[in-house]
């Protein structure tokens, strides 16, 4: 299974295996990793699953949809590394992906 690393804002790192086709958000929630709220349950409607992806991964991820881009406007302190983790589906190519959580989601 692909391994995903989630780094909390305080630096605490969690590396877990996430089944293919789950979202990066679900990987965190199912492993009770703090820092991702996911209030809308993955419907791209709340921006509380915001993460910063590691620079080297930025171009390896599927492009943002316009809905994700719009929702990111509402996230806390978004920047050019920002993604909504519910919109990134895990597959073998994402083995080793590292994402960091913002200091808060709302």
């Amino acid at each position, binding site marked *: 299974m692909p391994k995903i690393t989630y780094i909390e804002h305080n630096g605490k790192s969690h590396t877990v295996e996430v089944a293919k086709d789950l979202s990066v958000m679900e990987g965190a929630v199912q492993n009770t990793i703090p820092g991702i709220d996911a*209030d809308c349950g993955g419907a791209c409607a*709340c921006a*509380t699953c915001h993460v910063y992806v590691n620079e080297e991964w930025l171009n390896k991820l599927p492009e943002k949809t316009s809905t994700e*881009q*719009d929702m990111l*406007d*509402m996230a806390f*302190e978004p920047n050019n590394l920002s993604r909504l983790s519910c919109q990134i589906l895990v597959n073998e190519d994402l083995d080793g992906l590292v994402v960091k959580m913002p200091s808060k989601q*709302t």
Partner: protein
Amino acid sequence: MIKTDVVIVGAGPVGLFAVHQLGIIGLKAEIIDNLDKIGGQCIELYPDKPIYDIPAIPECTGEGLTNGLLEQIKPFKPNFHLNERVQEVSKEKNEWKVVTSKKKIFLAPNIIIAGGVGSFEPRKFLTQGIDKFENNSVFYSVKNKKDFENKKVCIFGGGDSALDWAIELSKFSEVTLVHRRNEFRGAEHSAQIAKKLEEEGKLKIKTPYQIVSVEGDKTINAINIKSDSGKVEKVKTDFVLGFFGLIMKLGPIAEWGLNLEKKTIPVNTKDFQTNKKGIFAIGDICTYPGKLKLILSGFHEGALAARACFKIAKPHETYRFEYTTTSKSMQERLGVKKND
């Protein structure tokens, strides 16, 4: 003070259908929601998007579903109390006392919490120190546009509200519109008007910029904004308006002494009662083994909670299971009784 059989917290799809399930068995409900409109997530987050998994309705929109539910509960004439957050819940003798943000008081033997993921509240600036200026220099809605006449106003956001208010207020105020991207997600037409106003020197647009700090003592007199490239600029301003959409906040529900599990309320699946007798939780807000956050599930949960409310509201009456197809009393309540 309003007395009723059941107070329903939340006018989302699940709260609405609960009115129906209570109504057919003869219970009255008052329904309270913090939003200015009826329909919960369906109306606030996806009014135009399709839903395909409501039984017997192959396709409808969030708005369509809400309208259908409103039509279905019309016979019960429920009272809606919108723009009001349920603030306090306390025990008063054998009943529950419910107090809203507008200090309206309800007394009922039952409460059904159909609060979804919490009440919808404006998404706020998270910049340090900005919260103390809320409602004097910082606002998340415009109540009276005259308040901003001939003043300097900074408007943040990229959606329709930000664009519309920037255009409107630019008629008589000095407006700067700030957004973190170059693209606006509001209507193309409005974005074009804003750009035209900028060319004419009637509106300043700052993109891609975000707020980093505020200056001022009792009121704000300037803010600092930072571009993606790291450039910081000071903008003198009297008011700061933020239009970042709404967010769901669990809010006061957490303070009513109910067991909570990750922002949801554990219930038993027999009647969807919480750890407090007479307080039920249905829809997205409740949790139990196997819970699915689906509208369909919320409808079922409401049907069971309604029957349990009956036993508490009318302890001396016998509850009888009946079908709407064949029950005279249910048809009377629905106002459809035919003479046979």
